[in-house]
């Protein structure tokens, strides 16, 4: 199971969990698993077309999936995924 780190702004949709485990052969499957567990996260991550919202960045290890194969990026069992939202506080 891969581990996905949830940033603070989204933790209210994951029962306060900072990290959740997700399974899947690629990012799309892992995200489906995530949304299955926490359905209220969906509108915060996906737009109406089913694509990740442009301001949401998902990293596998230290690489942005936009620089890899997007939602088709394969992941292994030990993958560490990071969800990086845009925040503006100062």
């Amino acid at each position: 199971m891969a581990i996905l780190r949830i940033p603070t702004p989204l933790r209210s949709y994951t029962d306060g969990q900072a990290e959740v485990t997700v399974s899947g052969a690629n990012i799309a499957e892992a995200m489906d698993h995530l949304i299955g567990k926490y359905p209220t996260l969906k509108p915060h991550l996906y737009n109406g077309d089913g694509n990740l919202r442009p301001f949401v960045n998902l990293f596998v290890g230290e690489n942005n999936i936009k620089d890899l194969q997007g939602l088709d990026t394969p992941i292994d069992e030990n993958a560490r995924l990071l969800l990086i939202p845009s925040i503006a506080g100062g």
Partner: protein
Amino acid sequence: MEPILPGLTRDEILRYSRHLLIPEVGLEGQRKLKGSSALVIGTGGLGSPVALYLAAAGIGRIGLVDYDVVDSSNLQRQVIHGTSTVGKLKVESAKAKLVDLNPEIQVDVFNEPFTSDNALRIAPDYDILLDGTDNFPTRYLTNDVAVFLGKPNVYASIYRFDGQVSVFYAKKGPCYRCLFPEPPPPGLVPSCAEGGVLGVLPGTIGTIQATEALKVLLGIGEPLIGKLLLYNALDMSFDFVKLKKNPNCRVCGPNADIKELIDYEAFCGVPSHDHDEGSAGTGWDITAPELADRLKQNHLKLLDVREPHELEISALPEAVNIPLGTLAARLSELDSAEEMVVFCKSGSRSTRALELLASAGFKKVKNLKGGINAWAKEIDPKLPIY
């Protein structure tokens, strides 16, 4: 040709002696800092430690941009200000502290919001920009200004326990828009005024921001160009990710189509401040005195869309609490035929709740303008304002 660096006086040599002892800084580095300039955009949570440490470090000229006045709710984190400067201009309050800390430096103040109209008048005069703003429009503006002027933009951003830091320098790496091509839709990402922030967080993050600025100005170490630092205070975690230049970036990519500053409030769909005062607009708002009158006449359902822990600070009796984040899933608990007034802390979240309710067919809803804080101010002085 290399610029001629200013010399250090006897007093300055003593003042900066701990820097002069570090070989990576030394006399030449300190003279570089004296000959350099930095524009600090925002003198709030991040701007406080940034400006204090840059001044202490001996940056020769520091510009401060802010249009706000010091409020007592700032002092939990904005340590450049003090109780004695509540109500005063932030730039003047900050300047007084900086000049006291280091009278050897020059502090320029710009008591105005940083906008498309003045940014290219203010920023060209500085070597480096530090983004300590509190809203998306000013962040996109700062990025674009830095790209157009070819200057580094030391970026930091905070929310609750999370912080982000990077050095966006389009000449050498990605810019802010390479990572975030578009802002989030209005209302989807809560601001610090709405969601809160741990007071020490901007201290940690702003200090890292100042460190990066000093490294860039000195030309030492490995600045966070092409890297983003993600900090979480609760987990005490530091994660780094790689950032690449986006070939489709609209401001720094090879086919960039944005060549001048735009209307950033329109681009982001939100105002360029974080004041959390929401109004749903004419016909949708009800003021606190109007609501008080209505409640004397007949029953009106009150819907409080704040988080449950906020009810411990202040609450209205009889109000039903459904936090905004869960409202969409709990609409069945409400009767669309019933007259209803929605409120939150200051009117921002309730405006979004009203939009959600209106789109779900609720026609008899109003927004309490200014939220429960307005009620506390105008109707019930026993309630605290937060």
